[in-house]
């Protein structure tokens, strides 16, 4: 078939995920050992289908053999059957023609059946692998998630699993067929005429060398190209999110030029990779065709010396074509496998990360202990500069804590520690007197209703966003939205609770989003309610209504409220004032107004104008 090879690494007609920058690439060292690991794991996924796999292979081999037998019959007809036939008796020719037909039919059914099984195996393997990967990602600690980065995890889940599917399917379909055709072709030519096949065997090492050399180079170049493609995506993303600023600063032409530079760079590297890969096809064709010429020349001598017949030369020609196509197919499979292996490595990297945040031995509840307690807790993200230090507080059931402090003072970190997203460096965090490290995750994480800053909303109904896969009844739902001051706007929506949100809740305003998130947090009346700066987009009036509703209807709930406004925390039972990770005040509003300078300063900055 004319030149549709080597143009692009993508298989056509298939849509795979958007190319997402992939930052955590494996280091080239200790690669071999890792690769072995990866392959071992891959084979584990094939294990459940072993029987099917073996049987498929068997059928595939038989089907492929048939393709090899056909040219052999052709030679036989020409050299052995024709001489015994006369014009009146052509029957033996038809008989052997019938055999050819039978082979063709067997090949058809065998290959079709095997291909269908390959599709099944590929489905099973990739479906299972993707599920396992998702499962593992759900159990990664936030620290591990941050290290991988979410975009990188997304691309592992989408394009990498896609490449593996492609690898399994293609390998089973033509990756097995091609080597059989290649080896079978060589064996049969050897059987027909060992001397003639020498001309082919001499060529093979050269071919192998050339093919591996070119593909190695090509794979490197494609990796380079992929990096450039990532860069381009980055620029488009930047421009997309910053369009207002770009237009406001009249930087449009500058950005266009910038993009064009990357565009050209990407295209050049793609061109280079493509051209490198494009070399292999003409070279292979040329070598094998030259081999064919050799066969005819050599064949002439062999026919003269009575060792062979012209018909055999003709079947040789057919075998050469088969071998040629098989070699080209094998080079393609190489690319597919190397891509798949790279992807398998990236997936395995996630699967292999050791479990963090393990649960320790259970501890008994202490009756008289406070419900939530921090005892001299210190923690640092990078283990050098402390993020928060010497944090202590204790809350009884139904009490509330307000945390206030400047940007980057460590307010949100305290929340993350309480949720055990990270393990603390020193001190203890206790719930009912039990260290949170001794609580199973399933028990710990059903205690909270949380609304983070810019929290997660999904493309689903409003009620499902509030319910969030918990079993919460309709009445509870309504109560939650009333407390969260969301009931009013929801009732104004045409579909009410069944209103379909778009991704990230983009079809709601900022204030509406926050109220939905607060509804989620209070729904089901969790033992501990955490609001992390989650009223910042609310105007003061709505905010004060919210506070009143929380105080009235969530009385039995222990709550922790992180805020920048004094007004949001001033009615809390305890207020913790943070500056650069250190507690610089702890007490009630009245106490702090007397004793804590920083608190007074904050209050001043927000309330000073009241008297104006």
């Amino acid at each position: 078939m004319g030149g549709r090879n080597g143009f692009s690494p993508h298989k056509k007609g298939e849509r795979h995920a958007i190319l997402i920058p992939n930052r955590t690439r494996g280091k080239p060292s200790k690669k071999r050992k890792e690769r072995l690991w990866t392959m071992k794991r891959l084979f584990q996924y094939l294990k459940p289908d072993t029987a099917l796999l073996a049987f498929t292979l068997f059928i595939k081999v038989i089907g492929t053999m048939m393709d090899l037998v056909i040219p052999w019959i052709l030679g036989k007809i020409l050299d052995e059957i024709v001489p015994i036939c006369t014009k009146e008796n052509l029957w033996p020719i038809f008989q052997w023609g019938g055999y050819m037909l039978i082979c063709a039919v067997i090949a058809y059914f065998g290959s079709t059946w095997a291909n269908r099984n390959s599709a099944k195996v590929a489905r099973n393997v990739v479906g299972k692998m993707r599920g396992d990967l998702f499962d593992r990602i759900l159990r990664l600690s936030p620290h591990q998630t941050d290290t991988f980065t979410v975009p990188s995890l997304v691309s592992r889940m989408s394009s990498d699993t896609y490449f593996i599917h492609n690898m399994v399917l293609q390998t089973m379909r033509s990756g097995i067929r091609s080597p059989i055709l290649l080896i079978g072709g060589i064996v049969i030519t050897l059987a027909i005429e060992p001397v003639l096949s020498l001309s082919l065997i001499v060529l093979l090492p050269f071919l192998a060398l050339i093919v591996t050399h070119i593909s190695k180079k090509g794979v490197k170049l494609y990796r380079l190209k992929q990096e450039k493609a990532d860069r381009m995506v980055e620029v488009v993303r930047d421009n997309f999110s910053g369009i207002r600023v770009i237009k406001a600063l009249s930087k449009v032409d500058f950005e266009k030029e910038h993009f064009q530079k990357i565009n050209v760079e990407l295209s050049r590297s793609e061109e280079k990779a493509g051209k490198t890969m494009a070399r292999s096809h003409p070279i292979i064709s040329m070598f094998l065709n030259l081999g064919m010429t050799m066969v005819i020349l050599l064949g002439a001598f062999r026919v003269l010396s009575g060792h062979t017949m012209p018909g055999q030369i003709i079947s040789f020609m057919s075998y050469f074509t088969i071998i040629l196509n098989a070699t080209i197919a094998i080079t393609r499979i190489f690319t597919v496998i190397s891509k798949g292996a790279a992807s398998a490595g990236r997936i395995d990297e996630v699967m292999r990360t050791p479990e963090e945040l393990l649960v320790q031995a259970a501890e008994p509840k202490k009756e008289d202990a406070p419900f939530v307690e921090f005892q001299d807790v210190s923690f640092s993200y990078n283990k050098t500069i402390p993020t928060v230090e010497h944090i202590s507080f204790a809350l009884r059931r139904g009490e509330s804590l307000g945390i206030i402090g400047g940007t980057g003072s460590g307010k949100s970190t305290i929340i993350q520690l309480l949720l055990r997203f990270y393990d603390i460096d020193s001190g203890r965090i206790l719930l009912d007197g039990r260290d949170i490290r001794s609580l199973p995750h399933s028990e710990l994480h059903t205690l909270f209703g949380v609304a983070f800053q810019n929290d997660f909303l999904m493309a689903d109904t409003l009620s499902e966003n509030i319910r969030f896969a918990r079993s919460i009844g309709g009445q509870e739902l309504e109560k939650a939205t009333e407390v969260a001051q969301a009931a009013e706007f929801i009732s104004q929506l045409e579909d009410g609770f069944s209103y379909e949100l778009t991704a990230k809740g983009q079809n709601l305003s900022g204030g509406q989003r926050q109220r939905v998130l607060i509804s989620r947090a209070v729904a089901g009346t969790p033992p501990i309610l955490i609001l992390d700066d989650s009223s910042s987009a609310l105007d003061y009036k709505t905010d004060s209504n919210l506070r009143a509703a929380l105080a009235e209807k969530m009385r039995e709930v222990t709550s922790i409220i992180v805020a920048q406004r004094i007004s949001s925390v001033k009615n809390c039972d305890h207020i913790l004032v943070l500056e650069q990770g250190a507690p610089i005040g702890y007490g009630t509003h009245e106490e702090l107004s007397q004793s804590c300078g920083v608190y007074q300063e904050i209050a001043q900055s927000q309330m000073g104008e009241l008297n104006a």
Partner: protein
Amino acid sequence: MKQEPNSRKYAGRNVYLRLFGYLLAFPGTALIAIFLVFSSNILALIGPELSGTAIDAIRYDFETHTASVDWHVLLLYCFLMVLFYVASAVLSFILSTLMISYSQKITRKLRKELFDKLLDMPVGYFDQLQAGDVISRISYDIDTINTSLANDLLQIFTSLISVTGAFICMLRISWQMLLIFLVTLPLSIGYTVWKTKKVRPLFRRRSAAIGNLNGYTEEMLSGLKTIKAYGREKQFLSRYQGQNRETMDAYYMADYQSASLGPSVNFISNLSISIISVSGACFYVTGLLSPGRISSFILYGRKFSGPINEFSNILSDLQSLRSAAERVFSLMDEFPEKPDDPDAIELSEVRGEVEFDHVKFRYTPEREIIHNLSLKVPAQKTVAIVGPTGAGKTTLVNLLMRFYDVQHGRILLDGVPIEKIRRRDLRRAYTMVLQETWLFNGTVAENIAYGADNPTREEIENAAKEAGIHRFILSLPQGYDTYLADGGLNISKGQKQLLTIARSMLSKAKMLILDEATSNVDTRTEIKIEKAMLRLMENKTCFVIAHRLSTIKNADLILVVKDGDVVEMGNHKELMQKGGFYAELYRSQYQ
């Protein structure tokens, strides 16, 4: 302004015609390509003819069992074979190299046009589009066009030459055998058409399924922390598994149906070989045909049926080419911002006097956002716009900067209607700090420098000092040369905002827009940068949008916006005395 990005539908032919236009954009390359395709295919067609003659030079007599070789013919033809095969390899290498350059040229052009178009789009357009969607058009869809366009064209061209050439050659060898051979033709064509019809919708479903799954994955992974916090891992895993299973089944269905495609192509080719072998042998026996001719015929037969079997592949390629091109073109055909009037004036000196004259505005026909607003802002005064969320505060900014055009009334800058001013100049007259900070992938210094024309390092540092972020920057690993990746994920919201404030400090614009500029900065930090903010506001006409009322108390004029109406207007004192909506809002924040 609410246009669906995909609103325009194409008649299929238009898309192809338009693509064809891109092919013709490089006529030189196209001509050479056509020439090369032609000659390399002719060369390929001569091959079997040569080998056939060479084989026939070796004669074997079955009666006497003796062989004879016509060495003269054999050597000549073997030599010719070597020549032709080398030439054809060289040609096909040059051809594929050329085609790669060719398609890359087209790709570059398409990508550039698409991106340029994108940046010329009104800002409102970006509010409706997903970044991921645009990225998939600019990378994946253009990639598809890149692979398909040049390849398919080459393929069609090659096939035409091969099929006709092979047909003629076969005819020359034996018309009787050709007749027999052609029996398989309707079979293969019929089969491919039938199969394609059956498979295509399955592949479409498969693409849709994988698209859905990827979207779902991206969404769920962005919510990891929340899922964890609520301990809902199991529930979301099982939901994911449901989607995953659906996708894999769609894959399986498509693969199952297409599983027979390859083998059947192979079968038809084997079938024709069997038929040719049998009939060829019969002709051989009757002395009508030599073995060499039979060999040539078989080789030509493969060349003939190959492209016909490939036909279904080309069809599905063209299908995906078309849908990719449609997506690219539909984006390209969106209305750009209205170009500047030909007689639009250049702004050289801006005083900064702004007037709204009976302005009405609506984003969608159903809902008017601004009903009849008239307002005059003298130069260097500060106007504050307050009101509950969603009341239309940001709309005013969109209108000032001409991100949207008003439907009724006029907005004047220094007495000139803003439609009469070059957009570039109009926007340059403003500098702004928005609630949503924008930092791009680049160094800290680059991010601050953006917006001014090549400021010196000293100017950059001064701006950072004024914004009160200099010390923080110095504490970063590489100071001003620290690379901010992923929109500055590695620094806090407040610091990001300070960086964009520093960016505005560099601007020499006469008007300033602060859209909730300090809402991400805590109040104490805010006080610390207030001095800097005041310096930024000096000698500028300022528009301040805020819901934190303390920041706007000193404004010369306060507009209170509610449900798109300006319900109150005046300075702080007047409004407090009035005891209306503003006073209520103001008091509620200290309850």
